[in-house]
C-alpha cells in the first residue's frame, strides 16, 4: 500500500515543521493538553450529540439504525485570505451552475455551441424533460448547493463534486460549532472565528425570496422529509425547527384546485415554497416513480404552473452528474466569460475510448467512481485497493465504460486528529454550503469531513468518516 500521507500537505504544519499562521494558537493550545482530557471532552461532545439525537442512519445496516457521526475536537482552520479566494470561486461556480441549468431547460445554447455533447444531457437520467420551458422564480434551479473541495498544497484547491440536488451535512456544521463553543470556550476567546449560526436565517430568507411572484401575504414555507427512517432525518427536523417552519411528509400534503395544501389542525392551508429533501424520483408519483409513497400526487403540475416553488428544482441533478462535472470548467467559462477560479480534478471519462484505455492500464493509481453514484458507495481507491478489488473494477468498467470516470489519487491535505493512538494526521475535505435566491449567501467555512482510518482518502460518513468544526478566521 502506498501511503498518501508521506506526500500530503498538512493544514497545521504545511509541508514541513513550521506551524502555519492560522493554526498558531490552536497548535500551542494542543501542546498543552493531556490526551485523556481531549478524549474526555470528545466523549462529552458525543454523549451530547446522542442525547440531542444528532444521528444518521446507514442504509443496509439494520442493527444500528441511528448512529453518530464521529466528531473530532481539533478544528480545521482557514485564514481570511484563503476563504476570500474560495468564496469568490464558489460564487462564480454556483452562478454558472444555475445559468447552465436555465440554458439546458430552455434554448440549450451550450449544446448548440458544441461545448457540451447533446447526448450527455438528453440521455442523462438526471435530466427532466418536463422541466423544458419552465420558469422557476428568479431563474434559480439549485438554491442550496454543497461544493466538495479538497486541498493538495498551500495554494491548490480542487472541486471534487458539485452537490446540486439535496446536499446534506449543514446540521453537523452548526452542531459541531455549538459543541465546540460549549466545551472549549477558551479557544474562541483567543481566535476570531467567523460565526456560522445565521445559516438557518439565511436559508429561510433564501426560501422566502423565491416564493411564486405576486403573493399578497407572507409566503408559507415547509420542509419536506421522506420521514424518520431517512438517513438525514435529523437534519430535516433540525432545519425546520431552526427556521420555524413546518416539517411535513408527503402524507401531510395534498393538491387541491391546482394549489399545494398542507393538512393542519384547522383543515387545509396553502403552501408556497417546499424545501424538499426527497429525491426527484419520489417527488410526485404522477410525474415520476409511480410507486412512490413519499411524494405528493400532482405537486409537479402545481410547480410547473408557477403556483409553487420547489427547492431545489426538479431536474437540478443534471449539474451534479459526474459526466457533466468534467465539462464544468467549460461551463463556468461559457456563462461567466472568465476562467474558473476553482479547478476541477483532471478526470478520465471512460466513455471516451482513449480515456478508457488509460484508465484500464492505471487502475492501481486511480480513483474510479460511478458516474451516477454518491455517498462513497461503489468507488475504487486504486492505491489502497486489493488485487481482487482492482480486478473486479476492471471487469465492471470494461462492461459499462459509460458508467465510470477516473481521477488521479490526490494527496488530500491532512489535519491533526484525535484517534485511538493519540493525535495523528488524517485526510480531509471541505463542503461549504451556499444559498442562492434573491442573492448569494455563503456561510464561512462549511463542513469538514475527515477520514478516520489511517491513510484512507474516503471521508464519507457512510464509510466511517468523521467531522470537524471548521473555522474561518477574521482578518
Amino acid at each position, binding site marked *: 500500500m502506498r501511503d498518501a500521507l508521506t506526500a500530503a500537505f498538512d493544514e497545521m504544519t504545511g509541508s514541513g515543521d513550521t506551524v502555519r499562521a492560522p493554526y498558531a494558537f490552536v497548535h500551542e493550545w494542543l501542546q498543552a493538553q493531556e490526551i485523556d482530557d481531549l478524549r474526555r471532552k470528545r466523549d462529552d461532545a458525543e454523549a451530547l450529540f446522542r*442525547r440531542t439525537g444528532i444521528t444518521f442512519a446507514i442504509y443496509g445496516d439494520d442493527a444500528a439504525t441511528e448512529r453518530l457521526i464521529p466528531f473530532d475536537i481539533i478544528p480545521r482552520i482557514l485564514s481570511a485570505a484563503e476563504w476570500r479566494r474560495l468564496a469568490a470561486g464558489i460564487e462564480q461556480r454556483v452562478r454558472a451552475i444555475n445559468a447552465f441549468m436555465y440554458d439546458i431547460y430552455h434554448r440549450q445554447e451550450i449544446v448548440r455551441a458544441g461545448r457540451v455533447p447533446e447526448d450527455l444531457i438528453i440521455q442523462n437520467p438526471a435530466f427532466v424533460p418536463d422541466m423544458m420551458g419552465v420558469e422557476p422564480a428568479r431563474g434559480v434551479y439549485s438554491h442550496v448547493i454543497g461544493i466538495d473541495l479538497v486541498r493538495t498544497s498551500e495554494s491548490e484547491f480542487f472541486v471534487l463534486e458539485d452537490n446540486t440536488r439535496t446536499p446534506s451535512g449543514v446540521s453537523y456544521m452548526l452542531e459541531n460549532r455549538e459543541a465546540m463553543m460549549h466545551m472549549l470556550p477558551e479557544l474562541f476567546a483567543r481566535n476570531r472565528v467567523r460565526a456560522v449560526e445565521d445559516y438557518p436565517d439565511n436559508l429561510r430568507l433564501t426560501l422566502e425570496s423565491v416564493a411564486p411572484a405576486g403573493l399578497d401575504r407572507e409566503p408559507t414555507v415547509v420542509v419536506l422529509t421522506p420521514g424518520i427512517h431517512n438517513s438525514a432525518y435529523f437534519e430535516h*427536523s433540525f432545519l425546520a425547527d431552526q427556521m420555524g417552519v*413546518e416539517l411535513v411528509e408527503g402524507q401531510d400534503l395534498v393538491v387541491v384546485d391546482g394549489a399545494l395544501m398542507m393538512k393542519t389542525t384547522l383543515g387545509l392551508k396553502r403552501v408556497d415554497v417546499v424545501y424538499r429533501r426527497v429525491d426527484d424520483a419520489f417527488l410526485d408519483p404522477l410525474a415520476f416513480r409511480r410507486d412512490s409513497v413519499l411524494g405528493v400526487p400532482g405537486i409537479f403540475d402545481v410547480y410547473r404552473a408557477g403556483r409553487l416553488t420547489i427547492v431545489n428544482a426538479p431536474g437540478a441533478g443534471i449539474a451534479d452528474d459526474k459526466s457533466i462535472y468534467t465539462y464544468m470548467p467549460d461551463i463556468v467559462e461559457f456563462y461567466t466569460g472568465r476562467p474558473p477560479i476553482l479547478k476541477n480534478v483532471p478526470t478520465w471519462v471512460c466513455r471516451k475510448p482513449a480515456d478508457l484505455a488509460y484508465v484500464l492500464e492505471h487502475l492501481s493509481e486511480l480513483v474510479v467512481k460511478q458516474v451516477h453514484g454518491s455517498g462513497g458507495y461503489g468507488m475504487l481507491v486504486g492505491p489502497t485497493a486489493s488485487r481482487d478489488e482492482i480486478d473486479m473494477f476492471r471487469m465492471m468498467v470494461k462492461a459499462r465504460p459509460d458508467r465510470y470516470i477516473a481521477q488521479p489519487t490526490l494527496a488530500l491535505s491532512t489535519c491533526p486528529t484525535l484517534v485511538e493512538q493519540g493525535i495523528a494526521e488524517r485526510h480531509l475535505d471541505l463542503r461549504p454550503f451556499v444559498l442562492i435566491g434573491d442573492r448569494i449567501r455563503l456561510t464561512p467555512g462549511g463542513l469538514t469531513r475527515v477520514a478516520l482510518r489511517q491513510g484512507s482518502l474516503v471521508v464519507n460518513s457512510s464509510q466511517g468518516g468523521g467531522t470537524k468544526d471548521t473555522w474561518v478566521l477574521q482578518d
Partner: protein
Amino acid sequence: MDPGDKHRDDSWSIGLRRMLGRTANDLFWMSRYIERAENMARLLEVGYRIALLPREDGGQDEQWGSTLRSGGCERSYLAKYGSYATRDVVNFMLFDADNPSSVHSSLATARRNARAQRTALTREMWESLNSAWIEYSGIDPATLGSNALPPLFDWIKERSALFRGALLNTILRNDTFYFNQLGTFLERADNTARILDVKYYVLLPHSELVGGEIDSVQWAAILRSVSAHRSYRWVYKDSYKPWKVADYLILNRQMPRSLRSCYDEIVPALDELGAYYGNRNGCQSLAHANRQVLAEGDMNAIFQSGLHEFLGDFIARNNRLGSEISGTYHFTD
C-alpha cells in the same frame, strides 16, 4: 380565512399559526404514552407490594389479575402465559415489546412520536425523553433482581416527572401545549377510572365478598397507586373508608389524579385551544358536560345508582371525547 376568525382572542395574534394534524396527533399520543408508562409503573409497584404480603387465601392470582385488568392488558397477558406468575407479569408490563402498553412499548411509542415531531418539542423535552429511552432500552430484564424493581419503579416515575417538568417549564403556551395537556389528562382520567372500576367491589359498602384487614390493604393499594395514601389523611382526617376513597379519586378537586382534577385541566385546555384557533366546537361542549357530571356528582347518589355503571359510563364519555378531539382537529385525515 379561517372559519372562526370572529371568535379569535386578539391576545394570541402575534405568531399565530396552526400545526399539522399529524403533529397534533403525535403530540397528543406522546403525552398519553408517557402518562401510561408512569401509570404502568404505579400499578405494578402496588401489585408487587401486595404480592409480598403473606396470604393464605390464594388471592395472589386475583391480585395480579386485577393489576393487569387495571392496565388494560389482562387478556393479552393470559393469551401469552396462560397463568399468573409474578415474574411473568412484571416482564409483561415492564419490558414486553408485544404488549403495546408495557413501559417499554409506551416509552418507545412516545419517543418515536417525539422524534417525528422534534420541531414541536423544546430541546429539554426531547432530551429528557430521549435519554430516558436510551437508558431504559439498555436494561437487560434477565439481570434484574427483585431488589432492583422498587428503584426501577421510582426511576420510571422520576423520568415521567422530568419530562412533564421540562414540558411545563419550556413549552410555548399554544396548540403544542394544549394537545400535550389533553393527552396527559385524558390518559390519566382513563387510568384512574379503570383502577377504580377494577376494584369497585372492594369499595362497595357492606360488601359480603370481603372484609377486615384485606380490605384496608386493598383500599390503601388503590390510593397508593395514585400516590394518594398519605394525602388522603390530610384531606379526610380519617382512616380509609370506601366511600371516602371513591370520593377522593372521583370528585375531589384537590387530588391531582382524580377524575374531577383531570377535567379541570382538560376543559381549559380545550377552551384555550378553541380561543387560540378562533373556533368553538363540539369537543368543548362534550368536555364541559363531562366535567359537569363530576362537579355536580354526589358520592351517595353514585353508590345508589351503581359505582360500576358510573365508572363504565365515565370511561365511555372520556373515550368519546378523545375521538371527538381527534376528528375536530384533523389528527389523521
